[in-house]
């Protein structure tokens, strides 16, 4: 079953606009990761944020984590057509002995040129 759920399921914006995607999860986590997947390709890691961190930046990406609300957001600023892809959050829960990431169902982002 999916642990994380992304919202919205799909998002269409114009180049230059900002895109915000949200992820909610159900159980306590060690960290949360965001991945991008271009159509028909593998997943590419974007950012890892640990449970004791609240915000992290990488280039045009900003990720926030609110463990009290069990939610995270990914903000892409000044979007480009090349940002068109599906974005997934994935959580790690080592306290359960689980050694694999649990992925959400993803947000499909379309950036119109």
């Amino acid at each position, binding site marked *: 079953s999916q642990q994380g759920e992304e919202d919205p399921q799909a998002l269409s914006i114009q180049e230059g606009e900002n895109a915000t995607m949200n992820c909610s999860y159900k159980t306590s986590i060690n960290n949360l990761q965001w991945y991008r997947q271009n159509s028909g390709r593998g997943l590419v890691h974007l950012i890892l944020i640990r449970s004791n961190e609240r915000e992290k930046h990488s280039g045009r990406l900003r990720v926030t984590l609110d463990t009290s609300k069990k939610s995270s957001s990914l903000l892409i600023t000044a979007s480009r057509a090349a940002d068109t892809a599906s974005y997934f959050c994935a959580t790690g829960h*080592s306290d359960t002995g689980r050694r694999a990431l649990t992925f959400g169902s993803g947000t499909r982002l379309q950036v119109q040129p």
Partner: protein
Amino acid sequence: DAGVTQSPTHLIKTRGQQVTLRCSPKSGHDTVSWYQQALGQGPQFIFQYYEEEERQRGNFPDRFSGHQFPNYSSELNVNALLLGDSALYLCASSLASTGPLNQPQHFGDGTRLSIL
């Protein structure tokens, strides 16, 4: 530095057949995880291999089995294929000493398996 490579890229099989998918991890990585991704869904964890043993398994039937070789490469085998096995199968590698959950997973581009 070679990343994760998977073969074949595409495969078409019929119901009841058996299939073997292959994965070579990123150089320096020793842990391989397999995921199944149905169309429009997120990846679902199948199992993870380390030191040539299955270390953890997701909620998949015994028809799904795997193997890891001394050079850390891995195979995923699926027997008695069903229509519902049609999906993109992804391999991800990591380094056990860092902890697979505390580092980025490196994914291959997957094998697209279609069952007719």
